[in-house]
């Protein structure tokens, strides 16, 4: 079930010249939301831009009693709509439609290989960090052992590593220029860790640029890990109405297009026909 709320902007925190976090008062949405779901944001009250923009629910905000009171989004400025979110004014209201989409799969223990407890590894590239706070919280609540592999171009692109640390997540950072963490791509330490893990069953979750997710999917397949990816297709409606957001999947029989706003954004990576993905 989706609802549409005209949510007050509580805070707008710039992280850099193109990243920011906006907090909204939206208790009902926050109560309904499951990890990995998204909202469609009307970035302007007028007609420019016309369509809503999809954003992962970044954090669930809670009041003093721990009850869900709102949510935040982690925004990267890329065009007209994200520019308006970047410049959002606290006190103003924006319309949020959600929660939408299929959440991350529940933190099931997974088929244990041997006796070692199952682990959950998240792999984020850039703004692909957005859907992982809610997942990490759920995994932490279920007392799962979790790791975040998190890569960016340079130190300035890596945010909120501490937030994950506080949730008990092991955080492994990489930057392409080596300014923080390991130098290179996030898939390098992931590959090594998968090779080293011994008999531990690992579930992989990835979100970020398509080439990164594709590489993670390949590593997951090679190492026999269930792998989930959260895809970011252009979306017209977010509710299954327009068939704009399709992703090509292959479930053994004819490959076909499915709507990523309904069946996704989270997909079992093994279903995806990667060559047909645009981004």
């Amino acid at each position, binding site marked *: 079930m*989706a609802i549409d709320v005209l949510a007050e902007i509580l805070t707008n925190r710039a992280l850099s010249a193109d990243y920011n976090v906006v907090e909204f008062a939206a208790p009902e949405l926050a109560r309904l939301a499951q990890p990995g779901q998204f909202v469609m944001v009307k970035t302007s009250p007028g007609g*420019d831009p*016309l369509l*809503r923009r999809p954003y992962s629910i970044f954090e669930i905000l809670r009041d003093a009693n721990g009850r869900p009171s709102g949510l935040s989004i982690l925004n990267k400025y890329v065009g007209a709509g994200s520019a308006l979110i970047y410049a959002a004014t606290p006190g103003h209201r924006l319309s949020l*439609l959600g929660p939408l989409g299929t959440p991350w799969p529940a933190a099931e223990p997974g088929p244990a290989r041997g006796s070692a407890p199952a682990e959950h590894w998240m792999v984020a590239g850039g703004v692909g960090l957005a859907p992982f706070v809610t997942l990490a919280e759920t995994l932490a609540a279920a007392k799962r052992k979790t790791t975040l592999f998190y890569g960016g171009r340079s130190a300035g692109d890596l945010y909120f590593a501490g937030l994950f640390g506080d949730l008990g997540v092991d955080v492994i950072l990489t930057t392409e220029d080596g300014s923080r963490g390991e130098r290179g791509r996030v898939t390098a330490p992931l590959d090594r860790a998968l090779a080293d893990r011994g008999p531990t069953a690992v579930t992989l979750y990835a979100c970020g640029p398509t080439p990164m997710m594709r590489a993670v999917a390949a590593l997951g397949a090679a190492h026999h890990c269930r792998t989930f990816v959260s895809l970011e297709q252009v979306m*017209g409606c977010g509710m*299954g109405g*327009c*068939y704009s957001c*399709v992703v090509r999947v292959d479930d053994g029989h004819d490959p076909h297009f499915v709507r990523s706003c309904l069946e996704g954004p989270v997909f079992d990576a093994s279903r995806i026909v990667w060559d047909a993905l645009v981004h």
Partner: protein
Amino acid sequence: MTTRDLSVRIGSLSLKNPVIAASGCFGYGLEYAKSLDIARLGAVVSKGLFMKPREGHPPPRIVETPSGMLNAIGLQGIGVHRFVAEKLPELRRLGVTTIVNVCGTTIDEYCEVSRVLSDADGVAALELNISCPNIKEGGIQFGCSLTGTYDVVSAVRKATSLPIIPKLTPNVTDVASFARASEEGGADAISLVNTFLAMAIDVETRRPKLSNGMGGLSGPAIRPIAVRMVYECHQAVKLPIIGMGGIGSVEDVLEFMIAGAAAVQIGTAAFVDPFIWDKLTAGLSSYMERHNLARVTDITGSLRTDA
């Protein structure tokens, strides 16, 4: 507030109110059933259906443009048989007034799809999509030719007793002549407009932004042209007209109705606000209140052109 009568009749088709979800913009309706009571809509028009399932075009399938959007979905769909088996029973159970958007690559296919739907239970009317600009083999060759339009309509007329509503393309010089051809072919109503054939180019890659090259323009951008076309058709034929093109507020609904529409469809605006339906019908009621109109049908064609 006294009760205002929002019901309209389009030929033998009765609608609770004149606000309909446009084809291709509301899935098969059921996608929305968890979030709202879709039986409250005047009707739901299904995504366009051929005999067989269709893949559609590869993404990118949409791109936003000023006050509008281009789409080239390519009529992805489950085909008429799966629709009858998988969607229609639930739509019927929910009490939805269901209009099916009928596609075909040949006149025979239009007739065959129409026959399958006539034999099924729960279809209120057929909208003949002879106007999709996004696939080469589908309809637009009929919709851009007067004899093609007449031929499809009169052939389907013989194949079904359901109300038939050809959907006209705006990509023509004289839309009113297509309204007349539809009337002569035996249509019960016409709907217009489908999208305008259009194009957007990524100037960095110098490629079209849509995988299909071209797409159909919808949304508020086209509204003033669509209103003009509804007005022209209303002058030309006696058939009820279902108007659409960029409607997003009760003022927009009224504009189309005053120009001559008996009912309206909402496409693109339902992407932005999937809960728009009750807002529009409430707005109609309060307009009728304010203007002291008992029946919503009193609005249709009420444009004053005297000085």
